[in-house]
C-alpha cells in the first residue's frame, strides 16, 4: 500500500564518512567520503570487491571498528540521531534495540553450547522482560515466519544440529525478534549453497516488505544484490563510485568501473565461443597509495588529463537517475566500448571434431568407512558403516576438452577429483587415463602417470608455500619429473611465467608479495610445469574477485588452446561452468544426475535437480524473469542416502509421475540428445515439456 519511494526521514543517513585504521607507521583511510541514506522498507545493496571498504562502513555504524579504527570525518545519523562521537549507554541502547546485524557465518552469531530456543528467548526475556512462556510463543512465531520447518522442535536443538541455511534463518529470526529499524547484512548468503541462498534471499526480500525494516545488504555478488535490493551503491577502493536504483544501475551503469564489472561476469547461458569476458586491467590501489585524482583513473579506459589531478565528486548524472563519481559520465557510451589492446583476449577455435577420450571413468565409487566409538566398533565387531561420497559415477573426457562438474557442497565433486588424482584410492569401479589404470592412490602410480595429472587449487592464499619463491615452486615439478634439464629450469620457469602474463621479475618474489589473482596464476603455472595432459581445477576462481576471475578464466582458456590441455573444472557457480566448459556433469549426493554438452544442460530437457539449480542462480539483471523453484528440506546424509533416486526426497517434479513410488527404485539413464544423458524416471517427453528456467529478458 505504501509506495516504494518512502517519504519521511531516513532510518540511516551516512554523510561524507571517512574511516581510518591506525597501523604501524601511520594510518590508513579504509573508507573515504561515503554518503548514502536508507529509508524504511528499503534495502540498499553495497557491492564491491574485497578490500573496497564495504564491511568497514557497516562496522562503523555499529562501532565494531576495533581498537585501531575510528571514524575520522563525517556523520552517521540513525533515526535522526548522530552516532559518531556518542559513547556509552545511550549508544548501546540505541543500537541494541534498533540495529541488528547478520553475518556471513551464522555460527558467529550462535552460541554452539546453548539450545537455539534459549538463545532466541534470551533476546526477549533479558531485554524486554517478557515471561518465558510468552517469549517462547513469540520465538516460535518468528521461526515460522522465516519458514523454519517444525519450529517448536528446532527450539530444542543445538546450532550444529541444523543445516547452514537453517542456521542463517535462525540468525535472521533472532535479528528480527526485537523489531529493529535497521538490519545490516554482511554477505549473509556467501557461505551458503546456491539453492539455499535463493531461499534465504527470498526470505530477506519478503521480510523487508512485511516489517518495513531498512536493510543494508553487503555483498560482492552483483546477482544477489539485483535480487534483494532496490538501491545499490558500488564501492571501489574505499569510495562509493556509483549509486542508483537497482534497475538503473544494471540497465545503465554510468561509472566506468561499474561498466567494467558488468563485463567481467559471465551471463548465465553465455559460453566461451560466443562471448568474451573482459577483465579490468591493473589492480586496486592499496589504501596508503591511492592516486591523487580519480581513484579509478589508472584503470579507466576513458581517463583524461583532468582525471589525474582532479578528484571527482559523487554527483547526479543528468538524464538518468544514477549518481556517479566521474567527470565524464555523460560523455561515456558504454555500448561503444572497445577492449583496450593490453587486455589479452583468448581466441577460441571451433572445437575439433576429434573426440578421442583421454579419460574414461566407469561406475567409480568412493566410500569412507565410518568408525563409531562404541566398544564393538573399537574391537571391529560391528558392521562397518560407510559414507558413500561418490557412487557409481561414469563419464569420459575427450582430449583437449573441458568437463565442468557442478553440484552443491557435499555432492561429492571434490571427492571425485581427489580419487581421480590419487589423493584417495577408489572403492570400486574402473578408471582409465590414457590407458593407465588410475583407481589406486598416488603411491601406487608411476611417476610418468603422476606427471600427466596435475591440479589447480581453490584458495589462492594457501595454494603456494609461503616459504619459497615463485621460481622455486614452479621449478620443483620440473626438477622432480626431470622434464627439463637442471640448468634450463630457470629459463623454462620464466617462459611459463610469461605465458601466465607475469614478468620474469616475479621469479624471486615470495607469495606474500603477490595478489590473489597473481597467486592463482602461479598455481596454474605450477600445475602446467610438468607438462600434464590433464589438469583438474578445483574451484580455481571462486575465491577471487570478479574482475580477477575473468582474467584467470581467460588465462585458462588460453592455456588450453596453447598446450592442448584437457581440463576438469569444478565450480559451484553455474554461469562460470556454463561459460567455461564443453561438457557439464551435475552431481547430487554422490551421484551423477545429468551429463551432457554444456549448451544442452542449460536448456530443457533437464533433470529436475538441474532445473532447481538453474532457477536459484542469482542473475545480475533485476529484470530477468526466472522460474521460482525452491527445494524443500536439507540434503540427506551421505551415510544413509535415500534409496533409488537420491534426489527423490526433495524432487519438485516427483508428483508429476503417475506412480511417485517408482522413485524409490534406481532410475534409468535416459539418452535425451547427443552425448546428453539424464538419470531420471521421467520420460524424455515429460522432461522436455518443462519451461525454460530463464525467460528472455524483456
Amino acid at each position, binding site marked *: *500500500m505504501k509506495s516504494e519511494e518512502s517519504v*519521511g*526521514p531516513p*532510518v540511516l543517513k551516512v554523510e561524507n564518512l571517512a574511516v581510518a585504521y591506525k597501523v604501524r607507521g601511520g594510518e590508513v583511510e579504509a573508507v573515504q567520503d561515503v554518503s548514502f541514506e536508507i529509508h*524504511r*522498507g528499503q534495502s540498499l545493496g553495497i557491492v564491491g570487491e574485497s578490500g573496497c571498504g564495504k564491511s568497514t562502513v557497516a562496522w562503523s555504524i555499529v562501532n565494531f571498528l576495533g581498537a585501531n579504527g575510528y571514524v575520522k570525518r563525517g556523520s552517521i545519523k540513525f*533515526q*535522526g*540521531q548522530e552516532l559518531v562521537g556518542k559513547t556509552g549507554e*545511550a549508544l548501546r*541502547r*540505541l543500537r541494541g*534495540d*534498533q540495529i541488528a546485524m547478520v553475518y556471513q557465518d551464522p555460527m558467529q552469531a550462535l552460541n554452539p553450547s546453548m539450545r537455539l530456543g534459549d538463545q532466541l528467548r534470551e533476546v526477549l526475556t533479558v*531485554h*524486554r*522482560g*517478557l515471561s518465558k512462556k*510468552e517469549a517462547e510463543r513469540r520465538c516460535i512465531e518468528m521461526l515460522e515466519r522465516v519458514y523454519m520447518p517444525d519450529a517448536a522442535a528446532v527450539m530444542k536443538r543445538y546450532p550444529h544440529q541444523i543445516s547452514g541455511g537453517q542456521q542463517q534463518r535462525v540468525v535472521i529470526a533472532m535479528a528480527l525478534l*526485537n*523489531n*529493529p*529499524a535497521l538490519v545490516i547484512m554482511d554477505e549473509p548468503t556467501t557461505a551458503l549453497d546456491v539453492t539455499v541462498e535463493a531461499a534465504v534471499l527470498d526470505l530477506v526480500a519478503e521480510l523487508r516488505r512485511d*516489517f*518495513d*525494516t*531498512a536493510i543494508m545488504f553487503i555483498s560482492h555478488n552483483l546477482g544477489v544484490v539485483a535480487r534483494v535490493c532496490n538501491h545499490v551503491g558500488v564501492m571501489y577502493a574505499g569510495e562509493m563510485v556509483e549509486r542508483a536504483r537497482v534497475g538503473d544501475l544494471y540497465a545503465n551503469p554510468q561509472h566506468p568501473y561499474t561498466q567494467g564489472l558488468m563485463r567481467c561476469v559471465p551471463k548465465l547461458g553465455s559460453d566461451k565461443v560466443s562471448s568474451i569476458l573482459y577483465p579490468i586491467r591493473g589492480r586496486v590501489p592499496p589504501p596508503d597509495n591511492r592516486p591523487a585524482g580519480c581513484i579509478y583513473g589508472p584503470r579507466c579506459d576513458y581517463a583524461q588529463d583532468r582525471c589525474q589531478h582532479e578528484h571527482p565528486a559523487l554527483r547526479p548524472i543528468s538524464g538518468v537517475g544514477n549518481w556517479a563519481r566521474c567527470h565524464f559520465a555523460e560523455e561515456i557510451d558504454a555500448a561503444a566500448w572497445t577492449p583496450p589492446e593490453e587486455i589479452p583476449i583468448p581466441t577460441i577455435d571451433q572445437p575439433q571434431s576429434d573426440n578421442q577420450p583421454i579419460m574414461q571413468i566407469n561406475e567409480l565409487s568412493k566410500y569412507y568407512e565410518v568408525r563409531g566409538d562404541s566398544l564393538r566398533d573399537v574391537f571391529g565387531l560391528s558392521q562397518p558403516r560407510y559414507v558413500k561420497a561418490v557412487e557409481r559415477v561414469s563419464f569420459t573426457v575427450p582430449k583437449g576438452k573441458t568437463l565442468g562438474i557442478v553440484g552443491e557442497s557435499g555432492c561429492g565433486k571434490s571427492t571425485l577429483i581427489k580419487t581421480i588424482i590419487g589423493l584417495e584410492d577408489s572403492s570400486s569401479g574402473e578408471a582409465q587415463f590414457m590407458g593407465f589404470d588410475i583407481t589406486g592412490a598416488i603411491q601406487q602410480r608411476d611417476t610418468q602417470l603422476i606427471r600427466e595429472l596435475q591440479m589447480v587449487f581453490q584458495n589462492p592464499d594457501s595454494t603456494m608455500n609461503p616459504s619459497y619463491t615463485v621460481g622455486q615452486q614452479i621449478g620443483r615439478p620440473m626438477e622432480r619429473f626431470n622434464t627439463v634439464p637442471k640448468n634450463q629450469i630457470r629459463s623454462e620457469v620464466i617462459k611459463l611465467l610469461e605465458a601466465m602474463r607475469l614478468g620474469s621479475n616475479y621469479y624471486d618474489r615470495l607469495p606474500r608479495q603477490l595478489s590473489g589473482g597473481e597467486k592463482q596464476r602461479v598455481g596454474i603455472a605450477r600445475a602446467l610445469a610438468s607438462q600434464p595432459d590433464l589438469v583438474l581445477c578445483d574451484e580455481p576462481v571462486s575465491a577471487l574477485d570478479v574482475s580477477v576471475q575473468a582474467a584467470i578464466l581467460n588465462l585458462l582458456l588460453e592455456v588450453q588452446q596453447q598446450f592442448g590441455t584437457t581440463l576438469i573444472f569444478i565450480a559451484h557457480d553455474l554461469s562460470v561452468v556454463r561459460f567455461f566448459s564443453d561438457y557439464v556433469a551435475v552431481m547430487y549426493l554422490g551421484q551423477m544426475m545429468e551429463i551432457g554438452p554444456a549448451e544442452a544442460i542449460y536448456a530443457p530437457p533437464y533433470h529436475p535437480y538441474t532445473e532447481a539449480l538453474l532457477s536459484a542462480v542469482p542473475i545480475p539483471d533485476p529484470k530477468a524473469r526466472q522460474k521460482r523453484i525452491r527445494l524443500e528440506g536439507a540434503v540427506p546424509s551421505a551415510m544413509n542416502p535415500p534409496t533409488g533416486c537420491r534426489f527423490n526426497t526433495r524432487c519438485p517434479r516427483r508428483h508429476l509421475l503417475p506412480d511417485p513410488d517408482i522413485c524409490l527404485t534406481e532410475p534409468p539413464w535416459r539418452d535425451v540428445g547427443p552425448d546428453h544423458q539424464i538419470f531420471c524416471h521421467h520420460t524424455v517427453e515429460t522432461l522436455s515439456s518443462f519451461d525454460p528456467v530463464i525467460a528472455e529478458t524483456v
Partner: protein
Amino acid sequence: MFVKDYMTRHPIMVAPEMRATEAQKIMSENKIRHLPVVGEGKRLVGLVTRQRLALKPDAMASLNVWEITRFLANMSVRQVMLAAKQVHTIGPDNTVERAARLMAEQKVSCLPVLDGDGVVVGILSEVDLLRAIQDMLGMTAEGVRVTMQMPDEKGQFARLATTLAEHGWGIMGIGSYPAPRRAGYYQIVVKIPQVTVEQVREVLSQIPGQEMVDIRTVV
C-alpha cells in the same frame, strides 16, 4: 483496515535522558511532530510533541534572561514529555476507525502503537488516517467518482451494486455515510475505473429512488 497496515513502523524514538533541545532539533530536522520516548526494550515512557516543547510563560516568569537559557539548556526530555499514563495508545491489530474515533474524541493528533507488553512498534498520526481515507476511496488511480444519495432502507445499495455489475464495472473505492443535513438518507461514494463520466451518468441516473449528487473524474 488495521492499524498495523497504516502506522509508521520504526518511528524515531528518544531516550528520556536526552536534552529537550536535542529532541527539538531532531523533530525539526526530520519534520516530525511527535517523538515517542522509550526506555529499556523500547517500552513507552512518554511522548513529546511540539506543543510540549513550546515555552510555558508561567514557568519562567520569575527568571531573568540568563537563567532562562540555563533552564532550557538543562531541561531533559523526561521533564517536558507527557508521561506514558496520560498518553492514549492503540494496539496494532485494532481497526483504523477505532483509532480515528479515539483521536477525535481525545483530540490528539497521534497514537503510539504498542504491542501486548508496551513495546512501541509504530506510531499512527493524523496523516496516516488521511492516507487510509485516500486508499478507501481509491485515490491511487484514475477513475470516475460518483456520489449517490439514497434512502436509508434495505436493498438500496444492492440496487446500485447490481446496476454496476450488469454493466461489468468494477469498484475501486467505496465510502458510505449518513447524508449531511438530510435525515433518513445515506450517501455512497463509489469510484469506478475505466469508464467515462457520460456512461456512468446515463446508467446511474436511471436508478429509481436514488439521486446522483455529484459525478467527476478524479485521480
